[in-house]
């Protein structure tokens, strides 16, 4: 990709104590204004990958190799001060549980003021900016919200506050880690509509992490599928969903019930469970569960290669499609 906003190259993340690999050589770019979805199940490494962008990996886990180039700087080599100026300001993040992102003993308005003050020097118009931000995310009574505490608000409302906090300094990239997974479906719809609207308005890039394929299908431009710590498929959302080339992606999609299926045909399941990334040797991590696997798959690692639809890491692509 020419001139990506952010470029992740061969990032590998392992545990510090016993060097277990959790994320293995992940590479992808995000263009300015592009929305990219990362889908995977538990243990796929999608959350750790996102956290590594902002240097927010938990204790005991660190990046062992690779680079994350943003604005000409490698974020993995940046010092704390540099990362601090980027976080919140140029790259922002929203999480699944607003209660852990919001300080329970601080008024909501003050928390947003804090974000402004820690980056811009100018706090004179801060209060006004906060009110505007609340209104933009659809909070009905910004004045009241300013004076409220997190526990006084519902889950959906708190998520809106978190979005307001993330967007108030107009970041270029928004990272979202399953922010709607714990919400009711009608509230999720409201939040997604809000996010789409804001993204269009600001031409902001987005990295959206989720296990919910339905959400991703209508939210992003490109999809990255992760399995056991590796990227197994990348493509436009249309290509990945209508012509998935990697058997895992195809298997995942066919295991979901389809609203258009009048006969409610039997779901096609993938036997077994995803392996722990560090237990996979030089082989395709999906081979134990794959119908198409042969000795080659079990003894060598397929790399990502371009096919007619997507980039996929597989020796026996699904093929077919229009």
């Amino acid at each position: 990709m020419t001139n990506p906003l952010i470029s992740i190259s061969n990032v590998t993340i392992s545990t510090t104590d016993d060097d277990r690999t959790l994320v293995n050589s992940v590479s992808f770019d995000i263009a300015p204004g592009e929305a990219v979805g990362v889908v995977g199940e538990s243990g796929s490494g999608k959350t750790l990958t996102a956290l590594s962008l902002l240097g927010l990996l938990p204790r005991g886990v660190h990046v062992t190799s690779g680079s994350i180039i943003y604005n000409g700087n490698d974020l993995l080599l940046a010092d704390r001060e540099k990362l601090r100026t980027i976080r919140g300001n140029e790259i922002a993040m929203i999480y699944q549980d607003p209660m852990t992102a919001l300080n329970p003993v601080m008024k909501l308005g003050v928390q947003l003021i804090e974000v402004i003050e820690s980056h811009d020097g100018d706090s004179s118009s801060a209060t006004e900016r906060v009110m505007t931000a609340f209104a933009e995310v659809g909070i009905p009574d910004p004045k009241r919200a300013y004076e409220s505490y997190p526990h006084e608000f519902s889950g959906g409302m708190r998520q809106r506050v978190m979005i307001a906090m993330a967007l108030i300094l107009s970041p270029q990239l928004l990272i979202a880690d399953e922010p709607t997974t714990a919400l009711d479906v009608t509230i999720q719809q409201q939040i997604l509509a809000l996010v789409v609207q804001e993204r269009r308005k600001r031409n902001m890039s987005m990295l959206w992490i989720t296990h919910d394929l339905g959400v991703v299908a209508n939210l992003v431009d490109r999809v990255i599928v992760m399995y056991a710590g590796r990227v197994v498929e990348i493509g436009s959302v249309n290509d990945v969903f209508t012509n998935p080339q990697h058997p895992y992606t195809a298997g995942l999609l066919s295991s979901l019930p389809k609203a258009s299926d009048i006969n409610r045909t039997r779901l096609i399941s993938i036997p077994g469970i995803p392996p722990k990334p560090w237990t996979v040797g030089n082989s395709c991590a999906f081979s134990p569960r794959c119908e198409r696997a042969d000795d080659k798959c079990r003894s060598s690692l397929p790399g990502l290669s371009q096919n007619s639809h997507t980039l996929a890491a597989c020796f026996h692509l699904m093929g077919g499609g229009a």
Partner: protein
Amino acid sequence: MTLSITDVTKRYKIRVTGGQVNALNGVTIKLSVKETLGIVGESGCGKSTLARIIVGLEQPTTGTVTWDSQSIFDKAKNMISSKHSKIQLVFQDPYSSLNPRQKIGDSIAEVLKVHKLVAKQAISDRIGELLTEVGISQELAHRYPHQLSGGQRQRVSIARALASQPDLLVLDEPVSALDVSVRAEVMNLLIDLRERLGLTYIFISHDLSMIRHISDHIAVMYLGRIVETGPWEAVLENPRHPYTRALISAMPDHTVVGSTTYQAPLSGEVPDPAAMPTGCAFHQRCPIAVPSCSVNTQDLRTIEPRHQIACQEVK
């Protein structure tokens, strides 16, 4: 054999403020044998409370629940009548539904012993049968729950529920806590078991796609009431209640890729069950509400054979 839920309400008192939470506000269901009823709704709708009441874990404030015309709860012994191990529950969380200190084979054996269902010498065989029935290798009987995956644990929970030879299985979000690629296996298992053993299911979920896949009949709940109920095709292809329509259009659909408009069908939030709106519980968020909706509570009325909705404005 039928399950009869008649005008069940459930109110909890909030000790701190003295108020009360109306978890269920008059639910009536008659379930025929071998039918699968899917109950769908969002938070605050009362579906989990209803599940607990159906299996006897809690008592309704008013109303009755009977199986074959007999009450589920044995008031004299203050416990769930053991005759009614005919109604079993499969829980959402595979990690807390099995005793961590019991080998899974022993968990199942215990059920067989308590209900004296099988002669002592035959217990081991029966455990093997049940595990095979749910697709678990018999060797795993000697393992502890933490040595099994989430999907395997859920299967063991199902086997344990089946050990008491139930007629009705209440499934409370049985696949929601499982990884996406594992859900299909468990759903297929549930459907197979239903065929093989002639089971009746109440399948509770917030996920309409799963409800659609397994249910014969669907009930949509909102704030403690059923707002629409009917055969699955009727409710999903031809939803009449405004809430059902909003719910269906809010469901993420992975087969419809890249639709450019993203409109939320419903604004506002679910009201607090401790502060119920007057009249129809949905009127504040309803696109077709008229003033009288805030006054009249809505009862289910039949608009088509077996298809009922609780709304005065839909003709």
